[in-house]
């Protein structure tokens, strides 16, 4: 196994983990079905790209048309990506996080994601349209030569930092009274309101936090693969992440990580394996992958909707019968 392959695997895994942690905060813990999730990862990637690239008039870059190009050094593009994800959450949240039937809300967000993709594809001078951005500079490439193994280790380390940050924020939120309030709001919003909780403020807060983490994941990914086009962030990408959170187990961070490893990463690897072993008609392996994901989603929703690792029950110190309380699933 060569270094590049290992790095590729680890970095994609890290990015997927970060994304799943964010989606779990929005969906698993707070009950917001953000079917436009991939747009937030995309805005983080585009922002990081535009902040780190030279202007489109520069030599070697003039085959692309885009705004910005500030050539800012690491870590500003990554921070910018996270901030962009958070900023985008504000108008989207403002319009959609109202008292709307849950399936309507989900569909409105899904369609928003499709609109965003179509608009960016057709607005050629904004972010280079369908072709997307290429030759995105890699963080710290002027310090360490990107073609070396050392750089691969560095990037994996940077990704790991991102994962640690996302984990830190998610763990602190989920295991706190704030997390408990979010879960209560998820379970019965009306009752939570009657107990003095402001649902719009709670949802908006977690939407923005999730958006920032999603933006960070995009920035990390674009710095590695150095390209970003609309075809990378089509609406089905959100569905893969939802599948991951459902399969892994929603409402808890370990479930989210498990889901990230099983679904997006697992499928990437199986696809690679199938291509190498020449199984299945070439070019249509992704199609079978999608069919499998569809079956996986339906299978889990039918047999095990709580996922592989369900939300754990919270038992407090000094509980009367601790030995009777095991990991029993919610009724």
């Amino acid at each position: 196994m060569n270094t590049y392959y290992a790095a590729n695997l680890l970095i994609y895994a890290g990015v997927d983990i970060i994304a799943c942690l964010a989606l779990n905060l929005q969906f698993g813990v707070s009950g917001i079905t953000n079917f436009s999730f991939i747009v937030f990862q995309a805005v983080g990637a585009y922002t990081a790209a535009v902040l780190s690239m030279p202007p489109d008039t520069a030599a070697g870059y003039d085959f692309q048309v885009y705004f910005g190009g500030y050539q800012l050094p690491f870590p500003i593009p990554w921070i910018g990506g996270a901030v962009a994800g958070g900023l985008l959450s504000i108008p989207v949240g403002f319009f959609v996080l109202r008292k709307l039937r849950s399936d309507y809300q989900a569909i409105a967000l899904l369609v928003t994601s499709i609109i965003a993709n179509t608009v960016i594809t057709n607005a050629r001078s904004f972010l280079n349209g369908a072709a997307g951005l290429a030759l995105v500079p890699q963080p710290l490439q002027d310090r360490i030569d990107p073609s070396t193994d050392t750089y691969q280790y560095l990037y994996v380390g940077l990704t790991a930092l991102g994962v640690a940050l996302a984990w830190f924020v998610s763990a602190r939120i989920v295991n706190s009274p704030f997390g408990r309030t979010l879960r209560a709001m998820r379970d019965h919003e009306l009752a939570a309101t009657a107990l003095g909780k402001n649902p719009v403020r709670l949802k908006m807060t977690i939407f923005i936090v999730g958006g920032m983490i999603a933006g960070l994941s995009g920035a990390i990914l674009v710095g590695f693969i150095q390209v970003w086009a609309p075809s990378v962030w089509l609406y089905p990408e959100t569905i893969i992440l939802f599948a991951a959170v459902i399969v892994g187990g929603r409402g808890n961070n370990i479930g989210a990580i498990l889901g990230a490893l099983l679904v997006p990463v697992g499928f990437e690897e199986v696809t690679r394996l199938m291509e190498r072993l020449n199984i299945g008609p070439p070019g249509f392996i992704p199609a079978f992958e999608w069919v499998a994901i569809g079956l996986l989603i339906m299978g889990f929703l039918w047999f095990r909707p709580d996922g592989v690792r369900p939300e754990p029950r919270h038992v407090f110190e000094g509980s009367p019968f601790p030995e009777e309380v095991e990991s029993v699933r919610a009724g």
Partner: protein
Amino acid sequence: MLVARDIHRHFEGMRAVDGVSIDVPKGQITGLIGPNGAGKSTFMAVLAGTLPATSGSISFEGTDITHLPTYTRARRGVVRTFQLPSEFARLTVLENLLVAAPDNRGDSLWGALRGKSYWKADEDRLVAQARALLRRFGMTAKESDYAGTMSGGQKRLIEIMRALMLRPRCLLLDEPMSGVHPKIVDEIKQYLQSLRAEGLTILMVEHELHMVEQLCDSVVVMAQGKVIGSGTMASLRRQQEIVDAYLVG
């Protein structure tokens, strides 16, 4: 204490509440009775803020609260329970109570990010408070069970305890005994009486008339969206129209 003036609630051509005014006196249990479809639950929802009044005004302890959202009214001391079970199913019984507590430093984004050491003291205090309530209502053993697996009567108790964690000044109870085992009904009755003795104001919608007779200091009767009478049960029984309209039994 809680005063509603000329409340109207019209929706899709239906006049669910058609000019209702009541005065809920402090430190008493007031009953709200009437036939099905009289608009009682709708009126409760308007009082709590879950539904907006089409017109009319509500004031609490002298302050106008007509345009305040539900969560603000709850923070000011007007807390409601629901007709249908509304427990947080995937939280434990203890967690259900803890959610209600308003003064937990860990209950905000920044509080959460600052970590357990920041909010542990508040949490411990509230856990003790919640456990005291559980002891009082006899549900200590169920502390770590999922609220969704509780029986109907237990869910009703959880809702009442949850509301009490907020230290309310006025409780709006919507059919607190409905679907509850007769033995627990008696327990709830005693709890409500002891709460009244501690100075809590209660307005409750109730169908069982003998319960209303035992518990309520005074009663308001609604039918077809309007108030058709108020006073003690004894005085109401003397008014023929009310007996005809509703008081069978």
